[in-house]
C-alpha cells in the first residue's frame, strides 16, 4: 500500500521521469527481482577482482626495478589498464546478451501482439528495453570502480583517466545495446539475434583492428622524402577512424597520448616534413561516433517496429 508519505518520497527520486516509461519500469522490476541480478553482479566482480589480484601478483614481480623497489607508477598503470580491459571484454559480451532478447523475447513469449495493440509508441518500447539493460550494465561498471581505483594506491593514474575509461565503456555499452535491440527487432528469435549481434561485434573489432594496423604499417612504410602531406593526412584520418571505431584501440591510443603528451583533450601530430597539427583525442571522437551510430541504429529499430506486418 502506498501511503502519502511514501509517495512524496518516491517523487523526489531523480530517476522518476525515466520510470514513467512503462517498459523501463517493468524490465527493471523483472531484472532486479530474484537472485539473478545479484548472481550476475557477484560473478562479474569476482572475475574482475580475480584478474586484478593475479595481475597484482604478476605485476609486483615484473616491475621490481634494479634497486629492488616496486615501481608503483608502472604497476598502477598496468593494474588500471588491465581492469579496464577486462571490463571492456565483459561489457562487450554481457550487453548484447541483455538486449538481443529484448524484442524477440516478446515474440517468443507471445506478448508482443498484446503490446502492439496498446498505445505504447515504438520509441518508448525500444528506449525502455535499452535503458533497463544499460542501467544494469552501468551498475556493473560503477561496482567495478573500486577495483579500478586500487591503481590510485600505486599512483600513475589520474581521476580523469578513470572518468574517460568509464565514458568509453558506457559509449561501448550503449552502442552494443542498440545493436542488440536492433537485431532483436529484426528477427523473432532470440538465439538468432544473439548470433547476429556477436557476429557484427566481432566483425567490427576485427576490421577496425586490422584497418588500424594496416594504415599504421603503410604510414611507416612511406618514404618521408617522397610522400606528400596530403597522403599522410589521408592515412592519418583512415587510421584515426579505424582506431576510433574500436574501444580497445581508442583506450590504448588515448592512454599513449596522455602519457607521452600529458594532454587530455587533444594531441599533437608531427608530419614527416616537421609541421605539427593539433587533433582531438581519440576518446572524444570515439564517444561522438558511437553515440551518433547508436542514435542511427535506434531510429532504424523504431522504424522497423513501426512497420505493420504486410
Amino acid at each position, binding site marked *: 500500500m502506498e501511503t502519502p508519505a511514501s509517495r512524496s518520497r518516491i517523487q523526489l527520486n531523480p530517476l522518476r521521469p525515466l520510470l514513467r516509461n512503462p517498459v523501463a519500469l517493468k524490465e527493471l522490476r523483472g531484472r532486479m527481482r530474484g537472485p539473478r541480478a545479484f548472481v550476475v553482479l557477484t560473478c562479474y566482480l569476482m572475475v574482475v577482482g580475480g584478474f586484478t589480484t593475479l595481475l597484482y601478483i604478476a605485476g609486483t614481480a615484473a616491475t621490481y626495478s634494479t634497486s629492488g623497489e616496486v615501481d608503483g607508477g608502472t604497476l598502477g598503470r598496468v593494474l588500471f589498464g588491465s581492469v579496464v580491459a577486462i571490463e571492456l571484454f565483459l561489457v562487450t559480451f554481457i550487453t548484447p546478451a541483455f538486449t538481443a532478447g529484448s524484442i524477440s523475447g516478446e515474440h517468443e513469449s507471445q506478448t508482443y501482439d*498484446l503490446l*502492439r495493440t496498446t498505445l505504447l509508441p515504438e520509441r518508448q518500447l525500444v528506449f525502455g528495453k535499452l535503458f533497463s539493460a544499460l542501467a544494469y550494465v552501468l551498475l556493473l561498471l560503477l561496482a567495478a570502480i573500486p577495483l579500478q581505483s586500487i591503481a590510485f594506491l600505486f599512483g600513475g593514474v589520474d581521476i580523469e583517466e578513470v572518468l574517460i575509461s568509464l565514458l568509453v565503456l558506457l559509449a561501448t555499452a550503449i552502442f552494443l545495446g542498440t545493436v542488440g535491440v536492433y537485431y532483436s527487432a529484426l528477427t523473432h528469435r532470440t538465439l538468432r539475434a544473439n548470433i547476429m549481434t556477436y557476429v557484427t561485434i566481432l566483425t567490427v573489432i576485427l576490421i577496425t583492428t586490422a584497418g588500424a594496423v594496416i594504415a599504421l604499417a603503410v604510414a611507416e612504410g612511406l618514404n618521408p622524402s617522397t610522400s606528400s602531406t596530403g597522403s599522410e593526412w589521408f592515412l592519418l584520418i583512415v587510421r584515426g577512424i579505424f582506431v576510433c571505431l574500436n574501444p580497445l584501440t581508442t583506450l590504448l591510443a588515448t592512454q599513449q597520448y596522455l602519457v607521452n603528451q600529458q594532454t587530455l583533450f587533444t594531441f599533437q601530430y608531427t608530419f614527416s616534413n616537421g609541421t605539427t597539427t593539433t587533433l582531438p583525442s581519440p576518446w572524444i571522437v570515439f564517444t561522438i561516433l558511437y553515440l551518433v551510430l547508436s542514435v542511427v541504429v535506434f531510429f532504424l529499430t523504431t522504424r522497423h517496429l513501426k512497420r505493420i506486418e504486410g
Partner: protein
Amino acid sequence: MSIDTPEEKVIETPSGEAATETPVLTEVLPELPTVIDEQDLIIETRNLSKRYGRLQAINNLTLQVPRGAIYGFVGPNGAGKTSTMRILTTLMKPSSGEAYINGHSVVSAPREVRRSIGYMPDFFGVYEDMKVWEYLDFFAACYEIPEAQRPGLINDLLELVDLAHRRDDMVDKLSRGMKQRLCLARTLAHDPQVLILDEPASGLDPRARIEIRELLIELAKMGKTIFFSSHILADVNEICTHIGIIEAGQMVAQGPIKAMRQQLMPHRVLIITLLGRLDDAKEALLHVEGVQGIVDLPPEEGKTRIKVEFTGEDLRMSEMLQALTSKGIPVVNFAEESSDLEAVFMKATKGIVS
C-alpha cells in the same frame, strides 16, 4: 431490435455438468436492456481480402457488427477468423479492402483504432516475473492512464474479473482460467468500446468457460461491443445477439441470431416422447397447421420418440400438445430441440477449409 433471450430455455450443453451451472446465465440475460441499432456499425469491413502468397486467407469479407452487440464469429479452423481479427486490431495490413472500427480506418488511423479496442489473442503469454497488479499497472501505463488513477483502476478491474484476492501473487502462479481473466482485465484497462477476443474460451475447463461467459455478458451490460470467435457453438448460442459464419475466407451468413435461425432453418424441430400409440399421435399431429413432417427416432429406454418439423410461432406447439392430449395419447416429454445452431452452422458451411 432489442436483445431477447434465445427462445429456448432448455439449453443442451456438451456436458451435463455445465448445464447445471448455466441458470445463472439465463437469469442475467433478460437484463440486457440495450437496444441495438442495426445501422450503427462499430466494426465494419468492406470487401476485405488478405492473401499470403498463393493462399487467399480472407476473400471479400464484409463484416458488420452493430454497436452493443455480442457478435459470435464462427467458422472452421483455417477459415480466416484470426486473420480478420489481426487486421481489425492493426497487427496486419489487409491486401485489399477497408476495415473500420468506431469510424476509424485500421490502416490510416491505427492509434485511434487501438484506443477503441481491447484485444485478446487466441494464444498469448503473460510476463512471468511480475505480480498481478504490476501486470495491470504496466498495461494501464501503456494505455497512457495517468499514474494517480491506476491503483483504483487496478482494484476495480481485479474486482470485475474476480481476482482481487490474487493481487500480489506472481502471474505465473495463476491457473489458465485466471490468466485468461487477467488478460481480459488487461483489455479493459483503457475502457475500450469494442472487445475483440480470439477464442476466449478455448482450452478452459467447463467452470472457467462459464466464468468467462458470465464476464462477457457482464461487459455487454456495461455497454461494450463484444466481437469474439469461437468453435464452441454452445457458447455462441447462449450469449450472442449476432453471429457471423465464415468459411474459406468468406462470410457465408451473418446477422442477428434469431433472424439467422429463421433464415437458415425455417423449420423448428420438436422432439416428442410417447409411451405408445405412435400412429394415433402421427395422425393427430398431421392435422395441426404448420406441421411439415414427422420422422421416427430410435426408441430410448423403450419409449417411442418422434421428431416433428414445423413452422410458425409457439402457439403451434401448444396446439400440437393439445391435439395429443385431447386424444389421451400418453406424452411424457415434449420439447423443442435447442441445439439448432449446430444445424444452422452445418447448413451454412460446406466443410470447405481453404
